[in-house]
């Protein structure tokens, strides 16, 4: 009888390792690939890319257009971060519900925070491990790395500035002026939040970026994202 018990225990151990392999690796590949193709499908609804010859001065596009606030769970933007991979693109939906948005669609926009290109704070959240892990490599960002947001209206390029680490209750990172209460915003910033350390959610890791430039859709995509659009 002890032989049977031993075999059952070994089987249980194998199943646990299989589950971990599935959760931390295989399912990330499956879900991450699905999120990427959903992002590329989403941008097809916004019309074909315009190929503008020559380099255009970004200042000539004027102030960035701010899109209307989307409905709950609506996918309204794509996020490109070349540091996470040359072809990295993930869809962004309104809301940060774990099951409704983060476990499936990928990146969630904190309701009540500003929209891309708006003066204030465009704040988003995503998983760092499991469920496609859109922000898996968030700690690898370097100063000046482009963080590009695409909406139906155009392209908003932010530049990564700094990382921060806060407790799970650190909602001040979502303020229009991050970490400042009742600040009057004059800058456009992007805030990415995820869990920290890896495989734990004892803290939150925060990545801040500052607005760099804007291009209307008619001006074509910025050079930073051409690799991601190559197969699209």
């Amino acid at each position, binding site marked *: 009888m002890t032989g049977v018990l031993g075999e*059952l225990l070994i089987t249980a151990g194998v*199943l646990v390792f299989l589950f971990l392999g599935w959760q931390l690796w295989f399912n990330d590949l499956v879900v991450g690939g699905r999120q990427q193709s959903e992002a590329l499908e989403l941008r097809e609804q916004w019309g074909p890319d315009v190929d503008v010859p020559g380099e255009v001065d970004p200042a000539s596009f004027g102030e960035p257009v701010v899109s209307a606030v989307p409905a709950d769970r609506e996918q309204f933007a794509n996020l490109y971060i070349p540091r996470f991979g040359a072809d990295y693109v993930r869809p962004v939906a309104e809301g940060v519900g774990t099951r409704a948005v*983060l476990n499936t669609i990928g990146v969630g926009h904190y309701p009540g925070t500003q929209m891309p290109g708006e003066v204030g704070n465009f704040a988003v*959240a995503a998983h760092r491990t499991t469920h496609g892990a859109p922000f898996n490599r968030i700690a690898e960002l370097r100063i000046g790395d482009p963080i590009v947001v695409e909406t139906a209206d155009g392209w908003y390029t932010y530049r990564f500035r700094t990382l921060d680490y806060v407790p799970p*209750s650190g909602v001040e990172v979502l303020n229009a002026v991050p970490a400042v209460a009742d600040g009057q915003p004059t800058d456009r910033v992007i805030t990415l939040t*995820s869990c920290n350390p890896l495989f734990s*959610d004892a803290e939150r890791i925060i990545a801040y970026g500052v607005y760099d430039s804007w291009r209307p859709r008619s001006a074509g995509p910025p050079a930073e994202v051409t690799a991601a659009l190559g197969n699209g």
Partner: protein
Amino acid sequence: MYAALWRALPGPVWFRILLVIALVAGILFSLVTWVFPWVDSLVNNQEVTVQV
């Protein structure tokens, strides 16, 4: 247990090996498709958002 299961399989050895491969593939498929997502919904509560 597994020895008894092996003996319970019909046919010659090559056929039993094929059968075992098919059974293992079927088990892996159902784990990945149904069991693991279900377990994941029970155990995974990793929070990535800041909230009060």
